[in-house]
Protein backbone atom coordinates (compact mmCIF):
# COMPACT_ATOMS: atom_id res chain seq x y z
CA UNK A 1 0.00 0.00 0.00
CA UNK A 2 2.71 2.44 1.03
CA UNK A 3 4.61 1.38 -2.05
CA UNK A 4 1.59 2.11 -4.21
CA UNK A 5 1.15 5.54 -2.65
CA UNK A 6 4.78 6.42 -3.27
CA UNK A 7 4.49 5.13 -6.82
CA UNK A 8 1.40 7.24 -7.35
CA UNK A 9 3.08 10.36 -6.01
CA UNK A 10 6.05 9.80 -8.26
CA UNK A 11 3.78 9.23 -11.23
CA UNK A 12 1.87 12.40 -10.47
CA UNK A 13 5.10 14.31 -9.95
CA UNK A 14 6.48 13.25 -13.30
CA UNK A 15 3.25 13.64 -15.23
CA UNK A 16 2.47 16.95 -13.54
CA UNK A 17 5.83 18.41 -14.37
CA UNK A 18 5.74 17.14 -17.92
CA UNK A 19 2.33 18.70 -18.29
CA UNK A 20 3.75 21.92 -16.94
CA UNK A 21 6.58 21.71 -19.44
CA UNK A 22 4.10 21.07 -22.22
CA UNK A 23 2.08 24.02 -21.02
CA UNK A 24 5.14 26.21 -21.35
CA UNK A 25 5.85 24.82 -24.80
CA UNK A 26 2.33 25.23 -26.12
CA UNK A 27 2.18 28.77 -24.75
CA UNK A 28 5.50 29.52 -26.39
CA UNK A 29 4.39 28.15 -29.74
CA UNK A 30 1.23 30.22 -29.75
CA UNK A 31 3.32 33.23 -28.79
CA UNK A 32 5.67 32.57 -31.70
CA UNK A 33 8.60 31.23 -29.70
CA UNK A 34 10.27 27.85 -29.31
CA UNK A 35 9.99 27.70 -25.55
CA UNK A 36 12.05 25.71 -23.07
CA UNK A 37 12.50 21.97 -23.13
CA UNK A 38 9.71 19.87 -21.68
CA UNK A 39 11.92 18.90 -18.75
CA UNK A 40 12.69 22.49 -17.79
CA UNK A 41 10.35 22.34 -14.80
CA UNK A 42 12.25 19.31 -13.44
CA UNK A 43 15.47 21.23 -13.68
CA UNK A 44 13.92 24.21 -11.94
CA UNK A 45 12.51 22.00 -9.23
CA UNK A 46 15.81 20.19 -8.65
CA UNK A 47 17.68 23.46 -8.63
CA UNK A 48 15.33 24.98 -6.08
CA UNK A 49 15.41 21.89 -3.86
CA UNK A 50 19.18 22.21 -3.68
CA UNK A 51 19.05 25.82 -2.51
CA UNK A 52 18.74 27.35 0.92
CA UNK A 53 16.04 29.69 2.09
CA UNK A 54 16.85 33.35 2.12
CA UNK A 55 14.28 34.61 4.62
CA UNK A 56 12.51 32.99 7.51
CA UNK A 57 9.61 34.08 9.68
CA UNK A 58 9.54 31.15 12.10
CA UNK A 59 8.17 27.64 11.86
CA UNK A 60 4.63 28.72 10.99
CA UNK A 61 5.98 30.21 7.81
CA UNK A 62 7.42 26.87 6.80
CA UNK A 63 4.31 24.99 7.82
CA UNK A 64 2.27 26.65 5.09
CA UNK A 65 3.86 24.89 2.12
CA UNK A 66 3.84 21.65 4.08
CA UNK A 67 0.12 21.93 4.75
CA UNK A 68 -0.46 22.69 1.10
CA UNK A 69 1.65 19.73 0.05
CA UNK A 70 -0.28 17.53 2.48
CA UNK A 71 -3.53 18.69 0.93
CA UNK A 72 -2.23 17.91 -2.52
CA UNK A 73 -0.94 14.47 -1.61
CA UNK A 74 -4.11 13.51 0.23
CA UNK A 75 -6.25 14.65 -2.66
CA UNK A 76 -4.11 12.64 -5.00
CA UNK A 77 -4.36 9.52 -2.90
CA UNK A 78 -8.11 9.75 -2.47
CA UNK A 79 -8.89 10.30 -6.14
CA UNK A 80 -9.23 6.98 -7.96
CA UNK A 81 -6.62 7.12 -10.69
CA UNK A 82 -7.50 3.96 -12.57
CA UNK A 83 -11.08 2.82 -12.72
CA UNK A 84 -10.76 -0.94 -13.20
CA UNK A 85 -7.50 -1.92 -11.61
CA UNK A 86 -7.01 -2.67 -7.95
CA UNK A 87 -4.41 0.03 -7.76
CA UNK A 88 -5.03 1.94 -4.52
CA UNK A 89 -8.62 0.88 -4.62
CA UNK A 90 -8.69 0.19 -0.91
CA UNK A 91 -7.74 3.79 -0.11
CA UNK A 92 -9.91 5.53 -2.62
CA UNK A 93 -13.01 3.60 -1.67
CA UNK A 94 -12.67 5.00 1.83
CA UNK A 95 -13.04 8.58 0.77
CA UNK A 96 -15.85 10.20 -1.01
CA UNK A 97 -16.40 13.47 -2.82
CA UNK A 98 -17.06 15.50 0.30
CA UNK A 99 -13.66 14.72 1.76
CA UNK A 100 -12.07 15.73 -1.51
CA UNK A 101 -13.89 19.01 -1.62
CA UNK A 102 -12.62 19.79 1.87
CA UNK A 103 -9.09 18.83 0.97
CA UNK A 104 -9.11 21.08 -2.06
CA UNK A 105 -9.56 24.10 0.21
CA UNK A 106 -6.64 23.07 2.37
CA UNK A 107 -4.18 24.64 -0.03
CA UNK A 108 -5.39 28.24 0.21
CA UNK A 109 -5.71 27.88 3.99
CA UNK A 110 -2.13 26.70 4.34
CA UNK A 111 -1.13 29.59 2.15
CA UNK A 112 -2.98 32.01 4.38
CA UNK A 113 -1.32 30.64 7.52
CA UNK A 114 2.18 30.95 6.13
CA UNK A 115 1.84 34.24 4.35
CA UNK A 116 0.14 35.84 7.33
CA UNK A 117 3.27 35.10 9.34
CA UNK A 118 5.44 36.58 6.62
CA UNK A 119 3.65 39.88 6.78
CA UNK A 120 4.46 40.85 3.21
CA UNK A 121 1.65 43.16 2.05
CA UNK A 122 1.64 41.62 -1.41
CA UNK A 123 1.43 38.15 0.06
CA UNK A 124 -1.43 39.11 2.33
CA UNK A 125 -3.18 40.82 -0.52
CA UNK A 126 -2.70 37.77 -2.69
CA UNK A 127 -4.16 35.51 -0.01
CA UNK A 128 -7.15 37.78 0.49
CA UNK A 129 -7.68 37.80 -3.26
CA UNK A 130 -7.33 34.03 -3.36
CA UNK A 131 -9.90 33.48 -0.62
CA UNK A 132 -12.31 35.95 -2.20
CA UNK A 133 -11.95 34.21 -5.51
CA UNK A 134 -12.53 30.85 -3.84
CA UNK A 135 -16.07 31.93 -2.94
CA UNK A 136 -16.78 32.38 -6.61
CA UNK A 137 -14.93 29.28 -7.75
CA UNK A 138 -16.52 26.87 -5.32
CA UNK A 139 -20.08 27.78 -6.03
CA UNK A 140 -20.50 26.41 -9.58
CA UNK A 141 -18.18 23.51 -8.88
CA UNK A 142 -20.08 22.43 -5.78
CA UNK A 143 -23.41 22.76 -7.55
CA UNK A 144 -22.09 20.58 -10.36
CA UNK A 145 -20.81 18.02 -7.89
CA UNK A 146 -24.12 17.99 -6.04
CA UNK A 147 -25.83 17.42 -9.37
CA UNK A 148 -23.59 14.43 -10.07
CA UNK A 149 -24.21 13.04 -6.58
CA UNK A 150 -27.95 13.26 -7.10
CA UNK A 151 -27.67 11.66 -10.52
CA UNK A 152 -25.53 8.81 -9.24
CA UNK A 153 -27.33 8.64 -5.95
CA UNK A 154 -23.99 8.25 -4.25
CA UNK A 155 -21.09 10.39 -3.14
CA UNK A 156 -18.53 7.70 -3.85
CA UNK A 157 -16.33 8.57 -6.82
CA UNK A 158 -15.81 4.92 -7.67
CA UNK A 159 -19.53 4.49 -7.90
CA UNK A 160 -19.85 7.55 -10.11
CA UNK A 161 -17.22 6.11 -12.44
CA UNK A 162 -18.89 2.72 -12.53
CA UNK A 163 -22.24 4.25 -13.28
CA UNK A 164 -20.83 6.07 -16.31
CA UNK A 165 -19.87 2.73 -17.86
CA UNK A 166 -23.47 1.72 -18.09
CA UNK A 167 -25.36 4.98 -18.31
CA UNK A 168 -22.96 6.85 -20.59
CA UNK A 169 -20.46 9.59 -19.83
CA UNK A 170 -21.52 12.44 -17.62
CA UNK A 171 -20.18 14.97 -20.10
CA UNK A 172 -22.87 13.82 -22.54
CA UNK A 173 -25.58 13.23 -20.00
CA UNK A 174 -25.03 16.41 -18.04
CA UNK A 175 -23.23 18.90 -20.29
CA UNK A 176 -24.40 21.93 -18.33
CA UNK A 177 -22.82 20.61 -15.16
CA UNK A 178 -19.62 19.95 -17.08
CA UNK A 179 -19.45 23.50 -18.42
CA UNK A 180 -20.07 24.97 -15.00
CA UNK A 181 -17.46 22.76 -13.38
CA UNK A 182 -14.93 23.40 -16.17
CA UNK A 183 -15.17 27.17 -15.86
CA UNK A 184 -14.45 26.98 -12.18
CA UNK A 185 -11.75 24.40 -12.88
CA UNK A 186 -9.97 27.04 -15.02
CA UNK A 187 -9.90 29.12 -11.87
CA UNK A 188 -8.70 26.23 -9.70
CA UNK A 189 -5.81 25.85 -12.11
CA UNK A 190 -4.92 29.51 -11.84
CA UNK A 191 -5.36 29.99 -15.57
CA UNK A 192 -5.85 33.38 -17.00
CA UNK A 193 -9.20 35.00 -16.43
CA UNK A 194 -8.98 33.95 -12.79
CA UNK A 195 -5.24 34.03 -12.00
CA UNK A 196 -5.85 36.82 -9.56
CA UNK A 197 -3.97 35.77 -6.37
CA UNK A 198 -0.56 35.66 -8.00
CA UNK A 199 -0.94 38.42 -10.55
CA UNK A 200 2.61 39.60 -11.25
CA UNK A 201 1.49 43.02 -12.49
CA UNK A 202 -0.64 43.73 -9.47
CA UNK A 203 0.59 41.95 -6.35
CA UNK A 204 3.98 40.71 -7.58
CA UNK A 205 3.25 36.97 -7.52
CA UNK A 206 1.29 37.40 -4.31
CA UNK A 207 1.58 34.56 -1.79
CA UNK A 208 4.79 33.22 -3.27
CA UNK A 209 6.66 36.50 -2.88
CA UNK A 210 8.47 35.60 0.31
CA UNK A 211 9.19 31.94 -0.35
CA UNK A 212 12.52 30.80 -1.65
CA UNK A 213 14.68 27.73 -2.00
CA UNK A 214 13.29 24.43 -0.84
CA UNK A 215 9.90 25.75 0.13
CA UNK A 216 9.38 27.41 -3.21
CA UNK A 217 10.28 24.06 -4.77
CA UNK A 218 7.79 22.39 -2.45
CA UNK A 219 5.14 24.87 -3.57
CA UNK A 220 5.97 24.13 -7.19
CA UNK A 221 5.85 20.37 -6.64
CA UNK A 222 2.59 20.49 -4.75
CA UNK A 223 1.22 22.68 -7.52
CA UNK A 224 1.95 20.09 -10.16
CA UNK A 225 0.75 17.21 -7.96
CA UNK A 226 -2.42 19.07 -7.20
CA UNK A 227 -2.94 19.95 -10.84
CA UNK A 228 -2.68 16.31 -11.76
CA UNK A 229 -5.09 15.33 -8.98
CA UNK A 230 -7.61 17.90 -10.16
CA UNK A 231 -7.32 16.73 -13.75
CA UNK A 232 -7.90 13.13 -12.68
CA UNK A 233 -10.87 14.22 -10.61
CA UNK A 234 -12.47 15.93 -13.59
CA UNK A 235 -11.79 12.90 -15.75
CA UNK A 236 -13.30 10.64 -13.10
CA UNK A 237 -16.38 12.75 -12.64
CA UNK A 238 -17.23 13.57 -16.22
CA UNK A 239 -15.21 11.44 -18.61
CA UNK A 240 -15.77 8.06 -16.96
CA UNK A 241 -12.30 7.62 -15.52
CA UNK A 242 -9.43 5.85 -17.22
CA UNK A 243 -8.60 2.16 -17.21
CA UNK A 244 -5.06 2.44 -18.53
CA UNK A 245 -2.20 4.89 -18.41
CA UNK A 246 -2.67 5.80 -22.05
CA UNK A 247 -6.34 6.61 -21.59
CA UNK A 248 -5.51 8.55 -18.44
CA UNK A 249 -2.93 10.70 -20.19
CA UNK A 250 -5.16 11.18 -23.21
CA UNK A 251 -8.18 12.29 -21.24
CA UNK A 252 -6.35 14.47 -18.74
CA UNK A 253 -4.31 16.06 -21.49
CA UNK A 254 -7.41 17.00 -23.46
CA UNK A 255 -8.87 18.77 -20.44
CA UNK A 256 -5.51 20.34 -19.73
CA UNK A 257 -5.09 21.73 -23.25
CA UNK A 258 -8.57 23.22 -23.14
CA UNK A 259 -7.67 25.00 -19.92
CA UNK A 260 -4.37 26.22 -21.38
CA UNK A 261 -6.07 27.66 -24.43
CA UNK A 262 -8.52 29.61 -22.32
CA UNK A 263 -5.66 30.81 -20.16
CA UNK A 264 -3.64 32.03 -23.11
CA UNK A 265 -6.16 34.05 -25.02
CA UNK A 266 -7.88 35.92 -22.21
CA UNK A 267 -6.59 38.51 -19.84
CA UNK A 268 -7.12 38.67 -16.13
CA UNK A 269 -10.27 39.76 -14.35
CA UNK A 270 -10.21 41.98 -11.33
CA UNK A 271 -11.16 40.07 -8.22
CA UNK A 272 -14.67 41.39 -7.85
CA UNK A 273 -15.25 41.05 -11.58
CA UNK A 274 -14.17 37.43 -11.34
CA UNK A 275 -16.47 36.69 -8.42
CA UNK A 276 -19.23 38.56 -10.16
CA UNK A 277 -18.75 36.55 -13.33
CA UNK A 278 -18.44 33.21 -11.55
CA UNK A 279 -21.54 33.82 -9.49
CA UNK A 280 -23.54 34.67 -12.56
CA UNK A 281 -22.81 32.69 -15.70
CA UNK A 282 -21.24 29.41 -14.54
CA UNK A 283 -23.48 29.26 -11.49
CA UNK A 284 -26.50 29.79 -13.67
CA UNK A 285 -25.38 27.05 -16.03
CA UNK A 286 -24.70 24.68 -13.15
CA UNK A 287 -28.03 25.47 -11.52
CA UNK A 288 -29.80 24.78 -14.81
CA UNK A 289 -27.99 21.47 -15.02
CA UNK A 290 -28.95 20.67 -11.45
CA UNK A 291 -32.56 21.58 -12.12
CA UNK A 292 -32.57 19.33 -15.16
CA UNK A 293 -31.36 16.41 -13.05
CA UNK A 294 -33.79 17.09 -10.21
CA UNK A 295 -36.87 17.51 -12.38
CA UNK A 296 -36.14 15.43 -15.46
CA UNK A 297 -33.73 12.85 -14.07
Amino acid at each position, binding site marked *: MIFQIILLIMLAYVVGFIYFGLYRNITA*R*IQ*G*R*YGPTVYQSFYDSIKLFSKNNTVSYGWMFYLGPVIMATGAVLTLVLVPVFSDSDFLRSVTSQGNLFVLLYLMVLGPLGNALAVGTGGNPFGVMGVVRGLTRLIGLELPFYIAVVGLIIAANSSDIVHIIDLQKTAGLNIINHPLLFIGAMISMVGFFGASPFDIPGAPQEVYSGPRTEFSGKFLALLMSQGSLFAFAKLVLIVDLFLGGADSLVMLVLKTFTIFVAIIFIGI*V*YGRYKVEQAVDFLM*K*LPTLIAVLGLARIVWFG
Partner: protein
Amino acid sequence: MAIDVKGVLSPLSAIGTLFEHPRTLTYPEVKKDIPIGYRGFHINNLETCVGCASCEEICMNDAIDMIHPDKEYNVKNTSGCIPRIDYGRCCWCSLCTDVCPPGSLKLDNICTHADCDPDNFLYMPKNHKNIGEEAS
Protein backbone atom coordinates in the same frame (compact mmCIF):
# COMPACT_ATOMS: atom_id res chain seq x y z
CA MET B 1 -26.60 40.13 -18.64
CA ALA B 2 -25.48 40.74 -22.18
CA ILE B 3 -22.74 38.44 -23.38
CA ASP B 4 -20.20 39.88 -25.77
CA VAL B 5 -20.09 36.91 -28.13
CA LYS B 6 -17.57 38.45 -30.52
CA GLY B 7 -15.31 39.44 -27.65
CA VAL B 8 -15.43 35.92 -26.27
CA LEU B 9 -14.91 34.06 -29.51
CA SER B 10 -12.57 36.23 -31.57
CA PRO B 11 -9.59 35.96 -29.18
CA LEU B 12 -9.76 32.19 -29.60
CA SER B 13 -8.50 32.71 -33.17
CA ALA B 14 -5.04 33.13 -31.62
CA ILE B 15 -4.91 29.39 -31.03
CA GLY B 16 -4.58 28.98 -34.78
CA THR B 17 -0.98 30.12 -34.53
CA LEU B 18 -0.08 27.00 -32.53
CA PHE B 19 1.24 25.23 -35.59
CA GLU B 20 2.93 28.20 -37.19
CA HIS B 21 6.68 28.24 -37.30
CA PRO B 22 8.16 30.15 -34.36
CA ARG B 23 9.54 33.52 -35.29
CA THR B 24 12.42 33.53 -32.86
CA LEU B 25 15.82 32.12 -33.78
CA THR B 26 17.61 29.36 -31.92
CA TYR B 27 20.42 31.74 -31.27
CA PRO B 28 23.79 30.04 -31.12
CA GLU B 29 22.98 27.83 -34.13
CA VAL B 30 21.10 30.35 -36.24
CA LYS B 31 22.23 33.93 -36.25
CA LYS B 32 20.60 36.99 -37.64
CA ASP B 33 22.32 38.72 -40.52
CA ILE B 34 23.69 42.03 -39.42
CA PRO B 35 23.24 44.49 -42.27
CA ILE B 36 26.07 46.40 -43.84
CA GLY B 37 26.23 49.75 -42.17
CA TYR B 38 25.55 48.50 -38.68
CA ARG B 39 27.40 50.55 -36.12
CA GLY B 40 29.52 47.79 -34.63
CA PHE B 41 33.18 47.67 -33.66
CA HIS B 42 35.81 49.98 -35.07
CA ILE B 43 38.16 49.15 -37.89
CA ASN B 44 41.00 51.38 -38.94
CA ASN B 45 43.03 51.42 -42.08
CA LEU B 46 46.46 52.00 -40.63
CA GLU B 47 47.97 52.57 -44.06
CA THR B 48 45.99 55.77 -44.40
CA CYS B 49 45.46 56.84 -40.80
CA VAL B 50 47.22 60.17 -40.40
CA GLY B 51 47.09 60.33 -36.61
CA CYS B 52 45.33 63.70 -36.65
CA ALA B 53 43.41 63.01 -33.42
CA SER B 54 40.15 64.42 -34.84
CA CYS B 55 38.42 61.36 -33.48
CA GLU B 56 39.86 61.93 -30.04
CA GLU B 57 38.76 65.52 -30.14
CA ILE B 58 35.16 64.92 -31.19
CA CYS B 59 34.56 62.00 -28.85
CA MET B 60 32.35 63.36 -26.11
CA ASN B 61 32.91 60.36 -23.88
CA ASP B 62 36.71 60.62 -23.88
CA ALA B 63 36.75 57.08 -25.12
CA ILE B 64 39.57 57.49 -27.62
CA ASP B 65 43.27 57.53 -26.75
CA MET B 66 46.02 58.15 -29.22
CA ILE B 67 48.86 55.68 -28.72
CA HIS B 68 51.91 54.52 -30.62
CA PRO B 69 51.38 51.48 -32.84
CA ASP B 70 53.67 48.46 -32.68
CA LYS B 71 55.34 49.53 -35.88
CA GLU B 72 55.07 52.35 -38.35
CA TYR B 73 52.35 51.69 -40.91
CA ASN B 74 51.96 55.05 -42.58
CA VAL B 75 54.90 57.28 -43.29
CA LYS B 76 52.62 60.30 -43.60
CA ASN B 77 51.17 59.79 -40.11
CA THR B 78 51.76 63.25 -38.64
CA SER B 79 51.86 62.26 -35.01
CA GLY B 80 52.92 58.67 -35.29
CA CYS B 81 49.87 57.72 -33.21
CA ILE B 82 46.76 55.69 -33.89
CA PRO B 83 43.47 55.71 -31.98
CA ARG B 84 42.57 53.11 -29.39
CA ILE B 85 39.00 52.98 -28.11
CA ASP B 86 37.78 52.29 -24.59
CA TYR B 87 34.67 50.22 -25.11
CA GLY B 88 33.68 50.82 -21.54
CA ARG B 89 32.91 54.38 -22.60
CA CYS B 90 32.14 54.22 -26.31
CA CYS B 91 28.51 54.78 -27.26
CA TRP B 92 28.88 53.86 -30.93
CA CYS B 93 27.59 57.21 -32.12
CA SER B 94 29.90 56.99 -35.11
CA LEU B 95 30.93 60.64 -34.89
CA CYS B 96 34.62 59.65 -34.95
CA THR B 97 34.12 57.95 -38.29
CA ASP B 98 32.21 60.95 -39.60
CA VAL B 99 35.02 63.37 -38.90
CA CYS B 100 37.93 61.15 -39.90
CA PRO B 101 39.70 63.19 -42.63
CA PRO B 102 41.25 60.28 -44.58
CA GLY B 103 38.21 58.10 -43.86
CA SER B 104 40.33 55.36 -42.40
CA LEU B 105 38.33 54.80 -39.21
CA LYS B 106 35.13 52.84 -39.85
CA LEU B 107 32.56 50.83 -37.98
CA ASP B 108 32.32 47.16 -38.81
CA ASN B 109 29.24 45.02 -38.39
CA ILE B 110 30.93 42.72 -35.91
CA CYS B 111 29.53 43.50 -32.50
CA THR B 112 30.30 40.77 -29.98
CA HIS B 113 32.98 40.94 -27.38
CA ALA B 114 32.95 39.00 -24.14
CA ASP B 115 35.82 38.90 -21.70
CA CYS B 116 36.42 38.57 -17.98
CA ASP B 117 39.19 41.13 -17.91
CA PRO B 118 37.95 44.74 -17.92
CA ASP B 119 41.26 45.86 -19.36
CA ASN B 120 40.34 44.07 -22.54
CA PHE B 121 37.67 46.65 -23.15
CA LEU B 122 40.47 48.85 -24.43
CA TYR B 123 39.96 47.94 -28.04
CA MET B 124 42.49 48.33 -30.75
CA PRO B 125 40.58 48.82 -34.01
CA LYS B 126 41.33 46.00 -36.41
CA ASN B 127 43.46 46.96 -39.35
CA HIS B 128 41.74 46.71 -42.68
CA LYS B 129 43.20 47.30 -46.08
CA ASN B 130 40.56 47.99 -48.62
CA ILE B 131 37.97 50.49 -47.56
CA GLY B 132 36.08 50.07 -50.78
CA GLU B 133 35.28 46.45 -50.04
CA GLU B 134 34.20 46.90 -46.49
CA ALA B 135 32.54 50.25 -46.90
CA SER B 136 30.19 50.99 -44.09
